[in-house]
Each structure stands twice: as C-alpha cells, then as structure tokens.
C-alpha cells in the first residue's frame, strides 16, 4: 500500500495524488491518442461510441452522483445539444463556434428548466424529467420547420481550420476530436470536485439542512449542477449526432434517458470512473450479445427487447449485490491486492443505514 506523506496543502489539491497515478493516467492518455494506429476502423468506431456515452454519463453523473438529483430526462438535453449544434452549423457557423454554443445553449435551457424542477424531490423530479423526455420527442415533431420533424436531419461535415472530420471517411480524426472533448470534460469535472461548488453539491446531496446552515444556497447550487450537467450532456448529444450521421425525433427517446441513468448506476454513482465503466457496458453490450448468439448458434433474427432486458437484469444484480457499481467492485479488488494478504472479508461490509425519510405525509 502506498502511503502519502503530505507536506503542503498543494498535495490535497493536486490532480494526481502521487507520481505513480500520474504515470498511470499519462500512459492511458498516450495509448488513447495512439489508438487509431493500433486498431481497425470498426473497433475505433466502437471506442468513439464509448467515449461519447462517457461524456453524456459525466454530465448526468454530476447531477445524479454528485448532487443527488436523479434525472430520467437527459435524452431531451442530448437532443437539444445535437439539434442546436447542427442547426447552428447549417446557418453557416463554423464547428468550433457552433459546438460550444450548443453546449452553452443546452446548459442555459437546462438551468431555466431546473428553476421549477429543483423544488421537487426524489420521485417527483424523476417523473417530471420523464415527462420532459417524452415531451421533447413531440416538440421536435411539432417544430418541424426548424427540426425537419420525423424525416430528421443529416450531420454535416465538420471543418476545423480546413481539416475535414467525418465519422465514416476519417474515423481517426473524429475519434481524436471526441477524445479531446472527453479529456476537457473530465478535467472540468475534476476541477469542480476540488473546488467549493463541487463540495457544495455533495453537501446538498447529503443534507440540505446543514448545507443551508453552512451558507450554501440550495436552489442556486442545484441550478448550477443542472446547468453544467446539461451543458456537458448537450456536447455529448452533438457528438452523438455526428456519430450517427442522421437523426430524428426518435433518436433521443425516453429509453436513451433511462439507459443513461442505468449506465451510471452500473458504473458506480458518484465517481468519474463510473461514467467510463458504465459507458463500456452500454456500448459493448449489443456487440457482446450478438457474438454470444452466434456462438450458441442461435438464429440471426433479432429478438426485440433483448438488449434492454439483459441490461435491466445486469442493473438489478448490481443494485442488489454491488450498489457501488463496477467502480466499487474495482476499488475492492485493488485494496485487496494492495493489502495482500491482510485484507479481511468484513472490511467492505456495508454500514447498516436505516431509512432516512424525506417524506412528510
């Protein structure tokens, strides 16, 4: 086990606790950057998909894992980010302006929607956001003059200073673009965690009463969390649009919202790693299932609902046996090896906590 001797306050603020973890993450980034030379285009596309889902997951993680507000309507913000980015570009805006603008617009709209929503707790917030997700679908259809309704839109070519980027013709460049956005979003998330706003979010999640007594403005903090979360989700939505190439009102359905929430729960609520682990599961599950089907010699006919069914089953097992998600399991394995052979079984025993009710009726 590594022991950190802290000699200055800088130690606690640093991005990486020690040289070892700095090296690990640096290696990871080097490998990630070099990936296009190591993989064929098909797998590169899959990895790109994982990263896009991870960005969306980071967005929702900030809201659900960090601030404790479960949203079942984030597909609406994916859609808003996607549509606004593409529409801006159709107006002739360059990608480098349209893309952040889409993120900011989504964040602003998210904050405005949050203002009534933050008064809602738990299930009420869940149902409000479900309604939002369902409404988004219909609103896209109703706004046909701008959104092209059911027939949908096609993503244009991205052009950054003359470099053309497109998902199919230049998968490597598209991958690097997504990777850059992923790293930036992760950094922003990490920075929030080590500064007052991030702590205020955790405070709101764990005890609104004492957060208030410490001078944290609950509504403002939740609205900020909503805003940042929606902005990141909007960016992911725009990238999803480019990745899919074509999209319409059904691309960002309620199922996507639910999948996103399940994804971060499977990955591990409240951790950055969790968003990435969850994204891997979501992105590779369809491939995995079709491969298994081929292996057991099943027919090639698609079974409707199989993916969501299996996904649901995985989630149920996780909530029952490993509520901390993949990240929680990973941490336990790591600690077990670090302490070897001194790890005891009861070290990870969950603290029994009794129902702390917020219900008043």
């Amino acid at each position, binding site marked *: 086990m590594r022991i950190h001797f802290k000699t200055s306050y800088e130690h606690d*603020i640093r991005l990486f606790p020690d040289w070892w973890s700095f090296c690990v993450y640096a290696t990871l980034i080097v490998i990630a950057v070099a990936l296009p030379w190591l993989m064929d285009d098909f797998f590169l596309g899959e990895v790109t998909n994982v990263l896009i889902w991870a960005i969306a997951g980071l967005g929702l993680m900030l809201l659900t894992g960090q601030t404790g507000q479960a949203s079942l309507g984030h597909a609406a913000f994916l859609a808003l980010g996607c549509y606004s980015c593409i529409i801006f570009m159709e107006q002739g805006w360059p990608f480098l302006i349209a893309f952040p603008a889409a993120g900011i617009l989504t964040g602003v709209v998210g904050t405005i929607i949050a203002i009534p929503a933050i008064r809602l707790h738990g299930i009420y917030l869940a149902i409000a956001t479900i309604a939002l997700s369902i409404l988004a679908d219909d609103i896209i259809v109703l706004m046909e003059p701008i959104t092209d309704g059911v027939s949908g839109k096609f993503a244009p070519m991205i052009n950054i200073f003359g470099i053309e980027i497109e998902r199919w013709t230049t998968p490597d460049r598209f991958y690097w673009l997504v990777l850059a956005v992923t790293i930036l979003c992760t950094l922003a998330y990490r920075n929030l965690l080590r500064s007052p706003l991030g702590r205020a979010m955790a405070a709101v999640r764990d*005890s609104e009463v*004492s957060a208030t*007594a410490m001078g944290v403005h609950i509504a403002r903090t939740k609205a900020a969390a909503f805003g940042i979360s929606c902005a990141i989700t909007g960016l992911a939505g725009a990238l999803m649009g480019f990745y899919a190439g074509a999209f319409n009102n059904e691309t960002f359905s309620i199922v996507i919202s639910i999948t996103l929430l399940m994804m971060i729960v499977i990955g591990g609520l409240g951790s950055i790693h969790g968003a990435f682990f969850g994204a891997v599961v979501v992105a590779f599950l369809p491939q995995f299932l079709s491969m298994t089907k081929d292996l057991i010699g099943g027919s090639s006919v698609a079974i409707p609902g199989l993916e969501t069914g299996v996904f649901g089953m995985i989630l149920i097992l996780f909530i029952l046996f490993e509520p901390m998600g993949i990240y929680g399991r990973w941490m336990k394995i790591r600690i077990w090896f670090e302490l070897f052979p001194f790890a005891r079984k009861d070290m990870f025993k969950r603290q029994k906590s009794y129902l702390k009710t917020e219900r008043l009726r």
Partner: protein
Amino acid sequence: MSTLLEINNATLKFGGVVAVNDLTFSVEEGEVYAIVGPNGAGKSTVFNLISRFYNPYAGSITFDGHNLLDRNADSVADLGIARTFQNIELFDHATVLQNLLVGRHRHRKTNLVQEMLFTPKVRQEEKRHREAVEEVIDFLDLQPYRDKMIAGLPYGVRKVVELGRALASGPRLLLLDEPASGLSVEETQDMRWWIDDIRKQMGITVLMVEHDMGLVSGVSDRVLALADGAKLAEGTPQQVQSDPAVIEAYLGAGAA
C-alpha cells in the same frame, strides 16, 4: 461587552401549539450562554428560529445590528453564525476534510467558470481554505480521521467533526445543539475543554442547548431555563439550578 444576539418577544406557533411563547433574551459578545429545559420546551426551536428555518409568528431577532428576519436561511452563515445539530447532520458520503471545507463555503470568492478551469485564484483560495481547516483539525485532534468517510466514523467522532465544520466557517457566534448528548464521560470532558478554548482562545461567542447540567454549569456564564416555550428563569448556573420554578418544571408540581 456588547450585545451580539438579541431576541425580542419571539413567538412561534405550529398550528394550535405554541412552540415559543413571547421569548426575550440576549447573548453578550464573548460569553457562553446555555439554554436548558425539559424535552419539548422549545430549545431547538429557538435555534431553528435563529437559523431562519422557521419564521417567527411575532417578535424580532437581531444579530450585531442586522435584522435576521430580513435574511434567508442560507445567508445567516454570511454574518458569522455557525451551528451544529441535535441529530448530527453531516455529509455522510464525503471525507472529514471535505466536510470541514464545506464549512468554509461562506468565504467562497470564486465563480463557477473559474472553478471549472481551476484558475490560479481558485488554487490560492483553496490553499487558504485548507490552512484554516487544518488549524481546526489540529485544534480538535482530528488528524487520524482526516481522509476518512463520515459514514464509517463512530458517533463521538462525528459529533466532533460537526463542531469542527462549524468552527471552520470562522464564526462569531456558535450555536451548539446538545454538544454532549450521546458522548461518554471522557468525550464530554473533552467537549468541555474545547468549548472553554473556543471562547477564550478564539473569542467566539457560544450559545448552546444542553441537558448535561455538569457541562452547563462548568462552562456557561449565563443560563436560560425554558418551559413550554417561555422563559422560566435566567441567571448564573447556580441561580437557575436553585430556582424553585425550574425545579418544579423538571420534577413536576409539588416537588419544590
């Protein structure tokens, strides 16, 4: 000495029940002021009035010349009022250090964008916050628990962490809601020394609700006895303890 906190004719009703009844008292700068009384006397309710969780039905509350009733619950801390809770309200899924750092929230000077970019100013501020928090950790001997999650800590330690979080905000007035409840004899003794030091070394005024009369008479300058939301007696610990009305309220009619 000047008056720091002043409560005048405060009344609070829940439906038909009068929780606080025409209560008037004031806390002087630099003193330790204790509120005692049987269960349901309205002691915690007084705290919740000061924290602005409840709105008084009538009366006024002023702190150092500021009308508290003009403020929302989240801006009470800005004036330098910090508090603890009867049933510990910590942030369970965060470390001790992070909990104490939330106490520094009222000193936040940076905005969202700066924090996302972690500009040099944020870094500098963070260092300042951490310096302040480390002092509190030293003062309360919390070093062994610094990076531990609250959820796994024993009750006595949590109680101290909550005190630490309130101290980290650098308050002028500290509201302690039953600081010794549930603590062992040794822990209560520690708490007593800390309250003494908080007042003497840090110059912080303390207003506390407490059942443990040993602690109350040990640290407090003045005591207020409450019953049914109204003032029963006020004075030095000895005066209040020997007041017939107080004895009657505690032991029932006819005991005095």
